[in-house]
């Protein structure tokens, strides 16, 4: 296996980490206005992700940095092509991050309402945009021989991309609702379970629609064949099993299942891409691949050594951090946020 493949896999791992972890943060944020009937409940919800959201978000930043280091042409073409989408992503991530820190540091209701609104928008828009972005990378975008994007913003807003974006939102909501039911007690716990049960069929429908879209809009058939392999199928099966566990009120198992669904969905996206990273709809020969978009073998070697040392360390202390904050948030908990 050459280092280009290693880095393709590693970037997939970073996105898996991001959607797995920040996925439930986004879900909690989207559910905030629906489950957070009063200020106290909203604070409890925010505090379930309080110690973690920032560390979870770093998975995305690292994915961006890793793309820059390992596949500079992918980074350059992708970030300039998705210009407006990334601009909106940045704006919403900015207000969301500040909102967590600022919201409860003042009691004025309007102050808090502004930041609650920021958390909601900042949790809804990013997964939507990232879903849109990934769908377009798979579907193909107008890219010329110099790897320059030649389309506009509205090229990106095709039905397939929108459905995929909605699917990302749907999975986040489901994942977040189950996370909330794991981290809370009492009325909020019950409400979270109910939200999980209600959002589950929506997520299933969106996944089905996005799957149909993938068959219609991407080169998945020529690439992977009608039978796409075990990963996408397992991704769908785990989603169905998640419904079973929600019904049986086995939150932890449901959470494992939606986690697997999210991870396998990302895996599927990367399988469809491989060995391309951005498909050109102008001419397949112009597509960016893990070879023509990559850094020199020397840089890849250096970065591989760095990643092999530090990714396990990061995993270690992040898991430990989740262990430290394993207790559920109750009405009596000290709320820092």
């Amino acid at each position, binding site marked *: 296996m050459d280092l280009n493949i290693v880095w393709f896999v590693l970037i997939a791992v970073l996105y898996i980490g991001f959607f797995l972890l920040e996925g439930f943060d986004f879900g909690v944020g989207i559910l905030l206005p629906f489950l957070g009937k009063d200020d106290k409940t909203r604070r409890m919800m925010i505090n379930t992700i*309080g*110690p*973690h959201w*920032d*560390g979870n*978000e*770093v998975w995305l*930043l*690292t994915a*961006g*940095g*890793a793309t*820059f*280091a*390992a*596949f*500079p042409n992918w*980074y*350059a073409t992708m*970030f*300039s*092509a998705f*210009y*407006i989408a*990334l*601009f909106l992503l940045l*704006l919403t*991530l*900015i*207000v969301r*991050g*500040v909102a*967590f*820190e*600022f919201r*409860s540091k*003042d*009691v*004025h209701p*309007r*102050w808090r309402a*502004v930041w609650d609104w920021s958390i909601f928008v900042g949790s809804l828009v990013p997964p939507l945009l990232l879903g849109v972005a990934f769908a377009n990378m798979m579907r193909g975008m107008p890219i010329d021989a*110099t*790897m*320059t*994007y030649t389309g506009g913003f509205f090229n990106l807003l095709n039905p397939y991309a929108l459905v995929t974006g909605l699917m990302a939102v749907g999975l986040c909501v489901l994942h977040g609702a189950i996370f909330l039911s794991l981290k809370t007690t009492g009325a909020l716990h019950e409400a979270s379970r109910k939200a999980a049960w209600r959002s589950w069929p929506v997520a299933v429908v969106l996944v089905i629609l996005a799957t149909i879209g993938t068959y219609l809009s991407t080169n998945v058939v020529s690439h992977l064949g009608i039978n796409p392999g075990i990963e996408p199928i397992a991704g769908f099966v785990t989603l169905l099993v998640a419904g079973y566990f929600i019904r049986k009120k086995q939150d932890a198992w449901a959470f494992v299942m939606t986690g697997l669904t999210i991870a396998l969905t990302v895996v599927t996206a990367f399988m469809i891409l491989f060995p391309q990273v951005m498909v050109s709809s102008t001419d397949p020969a112009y597509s960016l691949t893990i070879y023509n978009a990559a*850094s*020199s073998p020397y*840089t890849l070697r*250096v*970065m591989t050594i*760095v*990643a092999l040392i530090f990714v396990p360390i*990061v995993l270690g*202390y*992040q898991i430990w*951090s989740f262990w*430290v904050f394993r207790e559920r948030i109750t009405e009596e908990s*000290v709320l*820092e946020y």
Partner: protein
Amino acid sequence: MDVLNLARLQFAVTTVYHFFFVPLTLGLSIIVALMQTLYVRTNREVYKDMTKFWGKLFVINFAMGVVTGIVQEFQFGMNWSEYSRFVGDIFGAPLAIEALLAFFLESTFLGLWIFGWDKLSKRVHLLSIWLVAIASNLSALWILIANSFMQQPVGYEIVNGRAQMTDFFAVVFNPNIWTQFPHVIASGLATAAFFILGISTYHLLRPSQDNAVFQRSFQIAAIVGILGTVGVIMSGHSQMQHLVTSQPMKVAASEALWNTEDPAGLSVLTIGNLQGEEVFSIRIPNLLSLLALDQLQGTVRGLNDLQAEYEQTYGPGDYTPPVFITYWSFRGMVGAGILMLVANIYALLLVMGEQLGDKPKFLRFFIWFIPLPYIANTTGWLMTEFGRFPWIVYGLMKLDEGVSISVSIGMVALSLVGFTLIYAALIAANIYLMVKFARGSGTAVQDEASTAQTAVSLIGD
């Protein structure tokens, strides 16, 4: 305005804004960690109160630094995609390493620190804030390694029109980093020190029952501050000496030195015209030669001379940085730095003479000194970046070659306006919270009480 200049303006706005929060994060993380170390070792409540008081301000500031930092990592690809293609092989590596080594560490352990007061043992909790401090400063190191490549490219070769890394350690141990990194770390300490001196002074001047927290804070800040201000001046001096060989054009522009001189005098005030001629100038004879070369005699090269040389080396074009901005930002930085040194020595004398309790006459000035490091930090970066003109990577790639091709004026303008507006709103909220908590009492009961205070909201009733 074309795409290039809008993209440059956007980079300037977002970077200056980002760097408004970063130095305080760098310095205050260390000082809060020191305070908590004192608490863990002595078990005295006053140190716990200090840790909590400054920790709260640290966290508010930290959040702003984090969110504005995300823009920095994305905008290379958005606005400067041709630059990203050209240097990604080298420049991307420190950026990725920064995320992997520093961002994960600081964000995870800050979460543990904020939420872990009752969940972690005292020692592990202390370790958390130290890891935050180390990670923040480590993050500065890696981003400066990336910036150093733009200032002084090393450890690369050009293959098929792209810069490729040939020696990772040459990139990491870029000669530029050895003066730049200490300079930034020292400026962080100085920024945090003046922040604490100013806010402590506000409390010391109030008729208050218990000032122990702020007396002790003032003492610590005066000591850390002198390390910072002296360090920043010394490292700044070696930085300038390094630039004499690595970027003589920047030195000439920051001194408004049009013609090569031997010996060269240091400009106190120089006014030039648009044709690049000196109209009026007061210079201290020999001082620039002395500062730049450690000797009274010696050639310091001027703008006209360098422009002619660069035209020979790189072909026709404008190689002279905007002298006005470079010259005045250099003066802003040095001027603020000298004032800081004087103020800090005064603070140290007050502490050594144990005069804080007497509310000495000049003490109140420290409230107004809080902006000084901010002026120095901002003008310092303006000088560094404007002085690199017209290069995006010194000697290798010009600014106009680095800008994105597929991005339109409308897109850059939209994002520029968007970022500027949201940043303006956020800084208002940030200052409001900062002032509110800076005015809060330093004792532990403050926590919920001050949150419950009836607030004058920025957004109105």
